[in-house]
């Protein structure tokens, strides 16, 4: 009980500290628009990748369609906020995006989650492409041109706070009965079923939750970047999120943070290299995978409870 409270306080402190730090640096002018852009991209990527890590790393279902759900959130905001140009309108659009993403995830997940491994990956990829192609051809989404001049209703602070909330929710999911159930299914589906777990239902829970967070990420993306087009949500976008997850370590939320930050920083640094940028990026990717096959952090998690427990053990 005491350790839990203490750990939670440490986490809360860390989050507040991060906020104040960024705020201070922004005030001091050290963070310019360029860096703020990078930080926001990192934040949105964290939201997207954490949801995907829940699906891939914890429930063991290989989804390659994350960008499809992100697109739903982005377009909900892109379509609604130009009409309701208030903060309330933004959150309403985010909420609607999440609801539509949940419905879409149910439609996609109920039939396809029976598939295994790479078959599921290819089916979810197909589903995401179908979502994108629908958006590409509908009138309300303005087709292939996309939507411009979306009101700027999300600041870096919005992204930061929502990133923290998403992370807390996801970690809570993992450290609960639901989280244990999905990990059991990942470890051994037959044994999990024999223990009375309705495997489809639990897999679906993780998949739908991941899709909902993707929609949140998409909504923030639309409100911050202010321009969206269907091509932003293609297979390569899903792969970009997958790369963050695998690079950080499949099954490590801390790793997802680290990878999102590393890749975000790398991307910013490589801006100066022009066309060489993507070559260096791809080489870095190959080399990291060869030398760190389990990702940067493997399955390691930063935990303050563990430190406390260690302290207790040391005192005894």
């Amino acid at each position: 009980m005491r350790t839990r409270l203490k750990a939670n306080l440490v986490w809360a402190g860390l989050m507040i500290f991060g906020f104040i730090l960024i705020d201070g640096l922004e005030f001091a002018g050290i963070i310019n628009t360029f860096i703020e852009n990078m930080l926001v991209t990192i934040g949105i990527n964290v939201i997207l990748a954490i949801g995907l890590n829940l699906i891939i790393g914890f429930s063991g279902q290989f989804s390659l369609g994350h960008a499809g759900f992100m697109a739903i959130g982005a377009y909900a905001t892109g379509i609604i906020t130009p009409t309701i140009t208030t903060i309330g309108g933004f959150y309403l659009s985010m909420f609607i995006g999440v609801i539509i993403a949940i419905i879409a995830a149910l439609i996609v997940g109920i039939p396809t989650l029976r598939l295994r491994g790479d078959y599921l990956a290819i089916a979810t990829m197909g589903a995401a492409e179908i979502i994108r192609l629908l958006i590409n051809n509908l009138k309300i989404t303005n087709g292939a041109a996309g939507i411009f001049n979306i009101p700027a209703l999300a600041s870096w602070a919005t992204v930061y706070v929502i990133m923290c909330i998403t992370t807390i929710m996801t970690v809570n999911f993992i450290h609960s009965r639901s989280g244990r159930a999905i990990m059991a299914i990942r470890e051994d589906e037959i044994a999990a079923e024999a223990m009375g777990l309705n495997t489809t239902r639990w897999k679906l829970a993780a998949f739908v939750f991941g899709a909902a967070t993707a929609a949140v990420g998409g909504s923030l993306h639309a409100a911050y970047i202010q321009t969206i087009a269907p091509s932003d949500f293609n297979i390569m976008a899903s792969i970009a999120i997958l790369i963050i997850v695998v690079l950080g370590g499949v099954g490590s939320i801390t790793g997802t943070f680290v990878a999102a930050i590393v890749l975000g920083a790398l991307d910013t640094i490589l801006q100066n290299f022009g066309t060489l940028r993507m070559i260096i990026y791809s080489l870095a990717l190959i080399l990291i995978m060869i030398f760190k096959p389990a990702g940067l952090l493997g399955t390691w998690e930063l935990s303050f409870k563990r430190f406390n427990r260690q302290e207790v053990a040391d005192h005894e």
Partner: protein
Amino acid sequence: MSSPLLTATQLVKNFGGLNAISNVSVHFDQNELIGLIGPNGAGKTTLFNLLTGVTPVSAGTISLYTDHGVKTVNGQTPAQVAQAGVSRTFQNIRLFKELTVLDNVRIAMTNHYHEGFISSLLRTPKFYRTETAMTVAAEKLIAIFDLSAVADQPAKNLPYGVQRRLEIVRALATKPKLLFLDEPAAGMNPEETADLTRLIRQIQQDFHITVVLIEHDMSLVMTVVERLYVLEHGALLAEGTPREIQQNPAVIKAYLGGDA
């Protein structure tokens, strides 16, 4: 005499053209300890798989006597069969390897503790209450089977014999009425087997459940069970008390070859 728990009549299972199980009828009563023996490939595990819903039956009915009346369980998913009160272990240990002993047990309790999805995301007091109750119950069960010292270890780190024991604990955590043990003594030395024998007996009595075990080790089976089924080539060869089975000519022939 005693009330029935599960009856299976005229079970048939064909894999392609192969008759894995043909017309097998068995019945298990409440609080019984039953053995299922037979030579390799006799269809023992297949019968377990049919009874637990892992493989669908080709023909026949399986009825389970629950608190809410008789339930036909063939055609149901393994999860539904498990929720109806049937649990099992596996011949080639199927633990959740990367997860801790405590989590392995808590996972089996999933259906008995409803903390609510939203309340677990928001960490409401209800979540903490349920979570604590669940953990306490799991730790109690773990303590009964002397696993407290390794409760925080991933299952994969445990020695083979302990893994088998954990599988039994995990199966018990689902609160079954009927427990199937698939070769629990496989790979154990005589001493470990003797311990296990005592343990199985104790489980059956303390938890008031019916235990059915598949076993190759005849000494274990004969000393511990009340009643035996003998399978050969997918068909029922004999049924009876250990004494009856030991004297059954057909069984002797099947086990020891023609010259017995």
